[in-house]
Each structure stands twice: as structure tokens, then as C-alpha cells.
């Protein structure tokens, strides 16, 4: 440091002017020049709009400014109190699933252009539009539907808006959902439909867990706007009678809505091929880390019919041409129908949602390709079925509770062991294992039951470690 610049620093420190590293014009020279141009003596004059009596005159109870080093040290020390799913072995899923995230996904969503862009036109943000169109297109292939929208906050919020679409299209006020639906998603659906529609639950067969068609037939009527099913279900098994459900729904003039976990579509028939009118789901498995449930990605697809398209309460990008041959352009479909233009007439809730995660999902799907998706789904099934097999050999456990094909999650019942899921999970944690989700409060009729998730990230050794620990835990 030269002598002169040292003096300048000392002088600035003495005048206690905060010069902030993120704020270019916090240096006195720039500030003074600008104030002079504006024609005021002090910045305070610029707040003239706020009457004195409304201003907060005291000092806020926040800490003093900190350096990057201090902040890093503090936040890292705080975060160190977390124990991650790599430090432990986790078998938790239930709406946020453990899958490997290829490094390319993190690389692309860390690109500062994607990370810090917002809402420019395609002229300035061509790449953002194209990546989002590609996201729409790849989800379209997965679910076999021609229309896919901008991404939503999460599966629950997209389900809420899908149900609202059904109300709008059919002008009816009742939604039928299976009793096996995720209780949190059901709670979210209730929030979204509060005061707008009635939600009725359809029973399941006790042995197979499958949606009970007789119960569906007895409850559906000309008041029903939509019938919704999830595949795989929240409890992990596959609904196999969905074609019949579609027929029943359509014969009453109701829409058929399907919620999906996308990786299962590497191996399961796409809902567009069994009669779905609207498909929704959770894209977190497509290249997004779990982030404590904080990186979710709802997606919505529907048939390409004007009435359905015009009821989608969120943005839709279409591909188009430009004046030049060889160029792709993009534009919004029916932009006047969204909240941004129609305000209360749009009745919508979703604005800034999850585009960065959608771009990530597009990257993930293009890395895997058709064969990768097929293979991954099979590997997941093999590992989860191996876990089911090992666990079912443990005395006192019933694995799974439902006699149906499963994908990556399955139920484990502990009733015969005399132990609660909570007690079992406490023992597992001592072995460094995060056991399945405790379902005993959400589904009391299932007794002491837990929902386990096994995917490609679990090795044979992990699964065997779980089985060994469970043997100890049930003793």
C-alpha cells in the first residue's frame, strides 16, 4: 500500500462513510456528484414523499456489517450442525427423493446468465426461452401430451391449479381424489380450492391399495369436475386400473387428471396414453438436489385443445419463426389470459416460479435420453425390490403392505414387532441410518407403518446395512 492511498483510507475511515463492496456509488465522490445533479444537498431530501411521522427513526436490531470471510465462517459453522444424506444413509422419499445429480446439471444452473436473468424478451433472452421450450418439449415426451406449460412451484401447487382448470373447463364444483394421496398435497389442494369446490376421497382396496372402482362409480356424478389419481401412488405402488378410471371419469363428462413422479415414466405407460386430460407432477428427481425440500419443480401438461389451453393459469411458450430463415423464435401463447394482464380475472397465483430448475430438468433429460431413462427406472426398481425382499425376511415386518407392483417406495409395517416407527427410527439413527417416513399419523388405519425409498443411489451394501440395523431395532 502506498503512503498516499493509506492516508486516503485513514481519512475515509475517520469520516465513517460506509463504502460498500456491492454498492458502486457508495463512494462519496459519486454520491456528491449525483446529488449535485439532482439539485439537493442531502439524500434525505429525496425521501420527501414519506411524511416524517411515518419514518422509522431508531436503529434496527441487526448486527454490524460483516466481511465475506466472517459471513462464510459463521454460516458454514452453522450449517455444520446438519448431518447430510451422504454422511448418513437415508431411505427418505415421500415427495423429495434422493437421486444422483450429474455434475453437468449443477454446471448449467450455476451459469450466471441463467441464474441472474429474469424477464427479458426473446431478443435479449433467446437462450432462456429456448431452454424452457425444450423443458416443455421433454416433459411432453415423458407424459405423452402436446401442451406443457412454464414450471410451477411444486407438485401440490400445480395440482391445485390443475384442479382449478378443471372447475373452469367443466363449470362443475367437485374434485374426486384417491384416499392414498399425499396428505400434504391434499392439504395444499384444500388451500387452493378453499371455498371454490368440494374435495371427495375415493376409497382404496385394502389388499391391493388400488383405487376402488365401485366406490368411484358410486361417488362420481354430473357435479364432478375431475377425477385425480397418482401414479405411482404416495404409498409407492402402481395404480394399474387407470384406463378404467379414465373411462369412468369421461363417461360422466369429468376430466381425468394424473399426478406422476417423472423417473417412473422410463418404464411406466405415459398418462397421455391412458386417457389423461391434465397431467401434473414433481420434477425434483430430474437433476435437482434435495435442498431440504427447497428445490421443487411442479410441471403441468394437457391436451392441445383450445378450451384447456386457455384455462392454463400460467405462461406457455410456443415455438415460432422469425423474419430470417434458419432462426427459431419464441413467444407467449394467449398472454392476455395470465395474471400479468388480466389481474383478478385470471384468478391465478403463480408468477415467478421455478424456471432455473426447469432448465436443469431439461439438461438432465437430455443427458439421460430415452435409453438412460429406461435403464434408470429399471435399476431403481431392482434396488427397491431387493430392499423389499431383504426386509420382508425380517421377523415381524410386513413388507410391503399392498399386494401390487411398486416403483421406488414401499410401505413397511411394524405392528407385529410391538414397536412404533418412531422407536425404530431412533435406533436406526444410532446406526447412522435415516429410516422411512412415519405414516402412523397420516394413515392411522395402516398402524405403525413407514414409507421407505430406495433408488439408484443405494448400493447393495447400504440396503444390507439397513436390513441388519432393522433386525437389531425390532429386537
Amino acid at each position, binding site marked *: 500500500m502506498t503512503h498516499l492511498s493509506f492516508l486516503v483510507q485513514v481519512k475515509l475511515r475517520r469520516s465513517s462513510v460506509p463504502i460498500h463492496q*456491492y*454498492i458502486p456509488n457508495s463512494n462519496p465522490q459519486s454520491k456528491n456528484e449525483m446529488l449535485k445533479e*439532482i439539485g439537493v444537498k442531502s439524500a434525505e431530501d429525496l425521501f420527501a414523499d*414519506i411524511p416524517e411521522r*411515518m419514518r*422509522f427513526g431508531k*436503529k434496527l436490531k*441487526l448486527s*454490524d456489517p460483516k466481511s*465475506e470471510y466472517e459471513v462464510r465462517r*459463521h*454460516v458454514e459453522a*452453522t450449517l*455444520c450442525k*446438519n448431518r447430510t444424506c451422504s454422511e448418513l444413509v437415508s431411505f427418505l422419499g415421500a415427495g*423429495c427423493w434422493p437421486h*444422483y445429480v450429474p455434475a453437468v446439471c449443477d454446471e*448449467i444452473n450455476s451459469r450466471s446468465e*441463467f441464474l441472474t*436473468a*429474469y424477464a*427479458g*424478451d*426473446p*431478443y*435479449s433472452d*433467446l437462450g432462456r426461452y429456448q431452454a424452457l421450450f425444450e423443458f416443455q418439449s*421433454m416433459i*411432453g*415426451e415423458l407424459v405423452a401430451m402436446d401442451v406443457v406449460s412454464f414450471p410451477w*412451484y411444486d*407438485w*401440490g401447487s400445480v395440482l391445485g391449479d390443475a384442479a382449478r382448470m378443471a372447475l373452469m373447463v367443466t363449470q362443475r364444483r367437485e374434485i374426486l381424489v384417491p384416499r392414498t394421496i399425499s396428505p400434504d398435497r391434499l*392439504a395444499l389442494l384444500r388451500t387452493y380450492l*378453499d*371455498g371454490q369446490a368440494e374435495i371427495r376421497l375415493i376409497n382404496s382396496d385394502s389388499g391391493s391399495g388400488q383405487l376402488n372402482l365401485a366406490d368411484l362409480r358410486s361417488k362420481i356424478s354430473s357435479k364432478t369436475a375431475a377425477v385425480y389419481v397418482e401414479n405411482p401412488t404416495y404409498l409407492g405402488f402402481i395404480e394399474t386400473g387407470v384406463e378404467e378410471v379414465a373411462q369412468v371419469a369421461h363417461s360422466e363428462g369429468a376430466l381425468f387428471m394424473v399426478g406422476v413422479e417423472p423417473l417412473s415414466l422410463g418404464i*411406466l*405407460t405415459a398418462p397421455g396414453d391412458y386417457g389423461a386430460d391434465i397431467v401434473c407432477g414433481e420434477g425434483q428427481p430430474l437433476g435437482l438436489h434435495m435442498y*431440504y425440500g*427447497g428445490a421443487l419443480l411442479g410441471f403441468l401438461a394437457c391436451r392441445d385443445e383450445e378450451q384447456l389451453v386457455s384455462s392454463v393459469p400460467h405462461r406457455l411458450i*410456443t415455438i415460432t419463426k422469425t423474419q430470417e430463415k*434458419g*432462426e*427459431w423464435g419464441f413467444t407467449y401463447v*394467449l398472454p392476455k389470459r395470465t395474471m*400479468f*394482464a388480466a*389481474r383478478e380475472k385470471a384468478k391465478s*397465483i*403463480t*408468477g415467478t416460479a421455478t*424456471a432455473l430448475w426447469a432448465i436443469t430438468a431439461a*439438461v438432465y*433429460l437430455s443427458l*439421460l*435420453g430415452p*435409453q438412460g431413462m*429406461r435403464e434408470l427406472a429399471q435399476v431403481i426398481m*431392482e434396488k427397491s425390490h431387493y430392499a423389499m425382499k431383504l426386509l420382508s425376511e425380517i421377523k415381524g415386518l410386513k413388507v410391503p403392505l399392498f399386494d401390487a*407392483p411398486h416403483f421406488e417406495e414401499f410401505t413397511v409395517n411394524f405392528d407385529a414387532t410391538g414397536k412404533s416407527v418412531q422407536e425404530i427410527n431412533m435406533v436406526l439413527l444410532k446406526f447412522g441410518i435415516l429410516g422411512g417416513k412415519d405414516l402412523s399419523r397420516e394413515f392411522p388405519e395402516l398402524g405403525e407403518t413407514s414409507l421407505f425409498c430406495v433408488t439408484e443411489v443405494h448400493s447393495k451394501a447400504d440396503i444390507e446395512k439397513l436390513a441388519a440395523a432393522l433386525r437389531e431395532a425390532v429386537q
Partner: protein
Amino acid sequence: MRHEESTGYHAVIWREPIIFQLGKEGRRGYRVPQTEEEIKTSIGDVVSRIPGKMRRKAPPKLPELSEPEVVRHYIRLSQQTYGVDSGIHMHGTCTMKYSPKINDALARSPKVADIHPLQDIETVQGILEIFYGLQKWLCELSGMDEFSLQPRGGAHAVFSNAQIIKAYHKLNRELEQRTEIITTVLSHPCNGGAPGAAGFKVVTLYPDEETGYPDIEALKAAISKHTAGLMMTDPYDTGVFDPNILEYIKIVHEAGGLVAIDQANANSVLTRLRIGDLGADLCHFNLHKSFSTPHGSTGPGSAAIGAKKELAEFLPVPIVKHDGKNYYLDYDRPHTIGRVGEFYGVVPNIVRAYAWIMTMGAEGLQEVSEVAVINNNYLIRKLLEVRGVSLPWYKAHPFRLQEGRFSLQKLKEDTGIGIAEVNRRMIDYGLQDMETSHEPWIVPEPFTPEPPETISKEDLDKFVDVLHKITHEAYTNPEIIKTAPHNAAISKIDHTPSADSSKWAMTWRAHLKKMGGNKM
């Protein structure tokens, strides 16, 4: 070949194909972790357990590319995207401030990325501490008593607040009568859209011609036994602070309604004004605006709603609490509106906002507000020197807070060039285009640049200089603007598919069907 004009800028032109046009059959960009042989032997063919009609006949028709091809494609698309880090980006009402890199690094830590939302509470004390700290700081900044970090964006937060207003009147058995939410047209559109979605009838107040905000008498006229509440933005997107707010709150409270103030424009008033102290019952902040988290190409954002003590029991569940020893997730709120999102919030952005407030401290936040307002008023002085530009309500409000909503009406009348054309031409000069205005356009031919505290004086000067150049062109050579952009990645877009169902294609498969294989 387009006729590029020398502006000193040209966007990257890749003419990048749609990813479905790239690659070759049989390629792949990812090797799936394999199942151990012993497992395969042990369980046999699991796929056959799926009944035939539920087994997918052909794999999804995804693109087939190797890893380097995928990387190149998306790197190129990123290069054709204009972020805050790319250049002058002042999309108004969005507070496009710089997002510090250290916060990205912290948010991406495996200690955040690799934890599951249902882990035993004792294994996630670190992240809960960060939730709790941020909740407390937002209370301090707003004068509210409790905060929820559940909402995923601004509109989602306003919806949550509308649900709280609904739940409150329901509990008091007045919901059947109280069916109306009052808002102001200069408030963000979600202040109408979200209460509409919650089932309310929305009554919209318009600004007075002289003051730029509604007359108190207009509010009084809108108030009735049907009033459930007032939901509005303050300061407005015009950069005007509505000083009647104290009076509004009093009037609405006397009528038995609640008041929720949208604080998405809080950047300019941080540390200087606390909406809770003025009597608002509910409010929300956008972490992706005032609190520096990146906008992510339109999300994930993150928002937070604040409530006074009397309404805290209605907040969505769960909320992070501390029992003196441990942090925990509190679901015990008998009158909660329930869930508004799955799990707990946009966690990476919660970490970023926490780190940002910690870096800034009270002193830094005051500097944020001061410099943002200096920047804006400097920009206003300079823009008013540009031919054809005016600032409505200038006489009543020569000084503005976070931004100003300008008009190019004079330019349009003189030259036929309006904001749509000017915006296309901005790109030619290497600037991000400008926010016009939410609809309806109260200001004709509007533009709304918001210079947050993180933009330099030199960039503001450059921005003004470009507008001088463009308006000069409008008066002397309008053709060059009408045919713009010339230096962008693409030329003028054909918007007809936007409203034509025979042409629109939201997916590549729909495109192929509609164009009959004609790919271009």
C-alpha cells in the same frame, strides 16, 4: 444476412438448433449406476411384475446426445441470455440487484443441498437456525411479530395473505358478508389476481390525476359492510409513496377489514419505514428483489409473509421455532390456513438472504436504500432531458423512491415510435430491454427502469446516452427502429402462433405434428 448497425455491440449468434435436432440415435450423455449382479440374481426380472398395459411400450422420445454435446448446447443458450451479471439490466419493479457470489457458494453447500426435509430434527439444527434467524430479522425490518418463509414467490405470498384474511373473517363468522378486497390499480397485478383466486370480489381504485394515488374519498366510497380488506403495494411501481396509507389503514380497520401491504418495492425504504409500525396487519417481502437472491430466469424466487401477533395463528404451517434448546417445526396453529407449499420454502434462497442481511448489517441496509434512491433520482433528472420522455405526476412528486414510470407518449405522437419499438432497439445497444408496465397501462407508452443500489453512475450515464441515441433515431431515422433488432441473436419474431391454435406448439412433438415434418 441482416444489416448490422455499428452500435459497439453484437449479441452472440449461434443459430442453435432445438435440442431434438441435435445428436444421433444411440448416443447418451449419462451412465446410469448399475445394479449389482447379486441383486439381479436374487430378484430376477422385476419389470415383468408390471402388468403389460402399464409397461411403457417405447421409451420416451428424448434427444440422444453425448455429455459434451449437451454441455455445449446449454452453454450456448446461456450465452444468449442476458442476466444481471451480463450488463445494464434495470427491469423495473423487479429490483435486479447484484446477487453476491459468496451467497451462491453457501447456498450450494452439500450441507444445504444434501439434506432431506423429513430428517430427524436433531440432524438439521443448522438449517433451522438459519430459517429462524431470517424470520427474526424480517420481523425487525418490518415491525411485524411473526414471519413465515413458506411462500415461493410474490404472487404466492399475496395469495397466502388473502387466505389469511379469509380465514380471519371465517373464524369471526363474517365471511359470507365480507366478500370484497379493495386494491389500487398501480399495485402489482397479484394484489388483484391472488385475492381473485382466493374467491374474493376485487374492487380497484384508480389514482387521482394530480397526486398519483387514490383519493381518500374514493376509498371511503369503496368501503362497505362487504369489505374484507385492503391489499395494495406501497411504495408503488411509480416510485411514489402513498402517504394516505395511515388513513387507509384506519378506515379499513374501522370498517372491520384487514390490511395487507405488498412490500415487494421495499428496497428503497429498508431501515427507514416499517409497515408494521404504520398499522398494517400483514405484509410480504420478495427475497429475490430486496434481499438479493437471484431471479433464476424467472424463479425460483422466494417470498416471506409477516403478520401481527393477532394474525400469527393464521400463518401457514410449519414455522420454525426455538424451544430454548432446539429448533423445531411448529405445526401447532389451530387457525392456520394450512399448507401453501410442499415442505418449508425455497431453501437455497433462504440461505442467500440470510447471508446477505448478515453481510449488510443495519448500516449496510441503510446505504442500500440511500444509494438506490440517489441512483433513481439521478436517472430521473437525466431521462427527463431525453426528447419525447415524460414522467407522469412529476409536479406532485419530483423525487421518487425506487423507480419512476416514464412515458414515451410524446415520442410516439411525434414519430410513431413507442415503447415496443424502443425496447427492441435497446437490445441493439447491448442493454437489457425495459419493463413497460403491468396492465392496464395507466401511463401511455410506459417504461419503468429501476436502478438498484448495485448499479454504477457510469452505467446509468450509458443507459441515458443510449436512450438519447434511440430517440434521436426516432426523429431522424425511424425505419432503423421499426426494423430492429439488428444486432440481437434473432430478427423480428412472428407472433401469430400466440393466438392461433393451429400454429401454436408448446412442445417439439406438437410442432412436428402441426408443421407436418416441415421443420423450419
